[in-house]
């Protein structure tokens, strides 16, 4: 980033006024806001792909039709399925962590006991 960029003025990002909370469970308001921001970005990416298809078509390459007609070979099928499974593993990270903790008999009490134990002089 060059100096001129750093010196540029910046707009105010937050509206003055305490934000109301809608849910009784702490954290859900923040989580819902994050979900909607992600939904917005997903929509942006979908728009961009649509633009890519349209620009390609205008240049004589019908990507959209090509995508619809594409026949997936064995390599492609495997690559996609692996990607989907990997994605879902990341998506369910906390649930899987929970199962792993159960398998290893890790508990909150044990966690605190460890901290306490290691801190002992």
């Amino acid at each position, binding site marked *: 980033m060059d100096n001129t960029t750093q010196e*540029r*003025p*910046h*707009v*105010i*990002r*937050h*509206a*003055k*006024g305490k*934000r*109301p909370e*809608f*849910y*009784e469970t702490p954290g859900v*308001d923040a989580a*819902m*806001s994050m979900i*909607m*921001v992600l*939904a*917005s*970005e997903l*929509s*942006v990416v979908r*728009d*961009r792909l649509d*633009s890519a298809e349209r620009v390609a078509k205008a240049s004589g390459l019908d990507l959209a039709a090509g995508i619809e007609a594409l026949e997936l070979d064995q390599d492609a099928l495997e690559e996609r399925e692996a990607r989907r499974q990997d994605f879902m593993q990341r998506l369910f990270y906390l649930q899987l962590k929970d199962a792993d903790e159960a398998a290893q008999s890790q508990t909150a009490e044990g966690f605190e006991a460890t901290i306490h134990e290691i801190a002992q002089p």
Partner: protein
Amino acid sequence: MLNTFQQAAHPVLPTATADEASRQEFAKSFKGFIQSTLLPGLTPIYETRVSRAFEKANGRLPENRRDIRSVMIHDLYFQHYAMANRTAQELLWESVNGSVDRQLPELIEKAKALSATSKGELRIPEGFEPPRYVTALDIHCMPGGYCSEVTEDDVAVGALYDRGVYLYSMGYTGPNNDDMGRSVVNYLKRNMPDFKPKRILDMGCTVGHSTLPYKELFPEAEVWGIDVGGPCVRYAHARAAGMGLDVNFAQMNAEETTFADEEFDLVVSHILLHETSGKAMPRVFNEAFRVLKPGGLMIHADLPPFDLMDPFTQFILDNETWYNNEPFWGAMREMDQIDLAEKAGFDREAVRFDTAPMAVMEFAAAASGYSQDASEHVAERDFTAGEFAPGGGWEVLIAKKGEKQALAA
């Protein structure tokens, strides 16, 4: 009916990259979805489990909007609805704010260059203090409010408002965001064809959306737009110039303008009153009366009073007070506007409410997305609380100053 309304470009409107434009479209679509699809669900939710819960706890049914609110806020469907509304509003401003931030110095230079071409005056007094009711909270959650300046000759919040309010209204007010002003002018032309105002004052004009139709349709008139936001009037002046209209703009408080008595034939405001305060609103009426010539008209286009609606409708509308930083939204609807006008000096029989039909049909096929069908769809809806813009038309308060009233004072 799919809403594909698109804002018309003009020289000082901030531009958007492809991704910024997509974020903005998403915010607009989300607002549309909430109003068309989530909002209707509130009625059955209220009529069944929520009113039953109230009755069980209180031994009676809810009677007013406060009763309804006291139980609705604990219902999960309502919580999701209210969260969605608030989040859509935040996404909307953020989607525009990022693009304004990216091009701010260039926008300021462009605004200066355009303003220099205008024959209209731009008046920004030294040391102007905006009133507390616009600075205490950022109204409708617009970061920075109307008055903040982050740099010299700033126009940032003006640009933010111009693009943001288009998304907020989902294009219902036309490609230039000017449906309210245009509708009032149409109303005057149709109902009072002999009324030809020579000097027109638009109070609380922000970036001049509603101001410009007055100049366009009364080209001989001297038109003034005033607002407490410096960046707003600067942007307004440049925007008008960019659209080829010489209109005067000034940073001024509508409670106490610097105009002399009886300078104007027509004093108007559009969605101003609900952003003032209990103390300021009567003063705005008094000031309008003072600067009007005998025989002149005062017209305020704003929110209809609560007494015209059932409690559930009131409750839905009042959500803006609680969740969108609109502190005066609910209270304003309880003000007796006829009474205020009378106290300002207007004869009671010369004050009335009427409906100015939406001008949106005039945009049909005139701009991208405004097909005949889509425009008709907006114009012919029934009024639904929680949707933007009434079907049919805008509620206007009209008061005529008596010919001899100035002498009686």
